[in-house]
């Protein structure tokens, strides 16, 4: 029996309306990754995280809890759970997050911040003013909840005089660049992924990568934003040898991640098929989306395969980290 869709979506929508995020994040969890980086506050160009990396430890914890709910009577309790969640923030109690996962996600954001510096771009950060992008509720067809939230996100950029947002993941890039302009009036923000910023910069590697690598293209980057060239150009500039899996570029195959919370068993089967393709191409795999990464890393356990965020080898090469 799959999870009951309505209460799960209801909890996400209630959280966004009442608490500003699908899974509320404390200030420390939202901005802690930037501690010690001395990023200036605000500015015309900002690094906009959209909170997806910061949400991943909570999503991972919740997903493993829900996975145990699947096929169990307990999943009937989700309806009651939604009613309670309106009063108490239930989602943060539903699963204990792994500290290690949070450290990895925060380090990935720090790598991206360093890479944008290596591209020679001066930028700031909105710290606690930054809001979640709303990407997940958009995907679930909760359109009026999403539209209400998008107006709040746009207002934060306007109030801070931000003209360009540099994004760190495909889902945030896509909603901000391709969906916001259709639903928020006078939305003129320029949106660029950090991969585009770095690929278009003259940044040169300080340490070459001696690596055969398979790229797991994100469906949203490849087909939604036509972002296919940049990861290849950057890895090649760094010295890596690209080994393409059978499905790549605009024909990439989904990792199953988007349905990991609602339909864990289906997500797992789809992930296993994608991992088979990737493993046939190279031992080292890079991905560029925190959702893909969570799913692929989980699926690759016990396989002779290394899955990394593309920002990690790029930071080693371009920043010498």
């Amino acid at each position, binding site marked *: 029996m*799959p999870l009951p*869709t*309505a209460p799960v*979506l*209801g909890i996400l*929508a209630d959280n966004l309306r009442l608490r500003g995020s699908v899974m509320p994040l404390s200030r420390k969890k939202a901005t802690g990754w930037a501690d010690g980086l001395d990023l200036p506050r605000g500015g015309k160009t900002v690094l906009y995280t959209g909170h997806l990396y910061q949400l991943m430890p909570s999503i991972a914890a919740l997903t493993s809890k829900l996975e145990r709910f699947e096929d169990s009577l307990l999943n009937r309790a989700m309806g009651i759970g939604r009613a309670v969640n309106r009063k108490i923030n239930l989602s943060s109690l539903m699963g204990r997050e792994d500290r290690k996962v949070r450290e990895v996600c925060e380090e990935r954001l720090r790598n991206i911040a360093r890479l944008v510096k290596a591209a020679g771009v001066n930028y700031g950060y909105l710290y606690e003013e930054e809001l979640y992008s709303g990407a997940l509720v*958009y*995907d*679930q*067809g*909760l*359109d*009026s*909840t999403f539209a209400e939230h998008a107006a709040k996100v746009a207002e934060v950029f306007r109030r801070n005089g931000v003209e360009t947002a540099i994004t760190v993941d495909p889902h945030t890039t896509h909603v901000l660049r391709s969906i916001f302009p259709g639903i928020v009036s006078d939305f003129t923000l320029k949106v660029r992924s950090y991969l585009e910023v770095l690929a278009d910069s003259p940044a040169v590697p300080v340490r070459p990568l001696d690596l055969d690598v398979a790229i797991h293209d994100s*469906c949203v980057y490849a*087909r*939604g934003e036509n972002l296919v060239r940049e990861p290849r150009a950057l890895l090649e500039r760094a010295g890596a040898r690209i080994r393409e899996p059978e499905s790549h570029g*605009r*024909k*990439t*195959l*989904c990792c*199953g991640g*988007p*349905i990991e919370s*609602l*339909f864990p068993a*289906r997500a797992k*089967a*789809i992930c296993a*098929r994608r991992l088979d393709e990737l493993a046939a191409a190279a031992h080292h795999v890079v991905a560029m989306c925190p959702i893909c990464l969570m799913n692929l890393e989980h699926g690759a356990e016990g396989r002779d395969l290394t899955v990394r965020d593309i920002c990690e080898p790029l930071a080693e090469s371009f920043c010498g980290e």
Partner: protein
Amino acid sequence: MTAPTMIEQRDELLAFTNNGGCINCGTCTAVCPLPKENVMLPRHILRLMHLGQREELIARADAIFSCLLCRLCEETCPAGVSIPECVRYLRGFMNRHLHHLEKE
């Protein structure tokens, strides 16, 4: 505001999908990762939309919420149908009329 009647809801479905020119060729289903998991996506769902089969669609909510929105179907569709956008629309339809998560 009173809830829309079934006919109005059916009209809403038709108004959305009639803009697409699906020729029912099944290319989308051939590339979609979900049929391998025994989930009927996406040609079947589009056909039901075209026919305004509200109850049949509601019975397939599970398939509609299983779509990955990965756009592989859209990439290969010879008629240029925005399939994931139809799926997203159907989710919104269910969220409004069935789950009552948003205003009807």
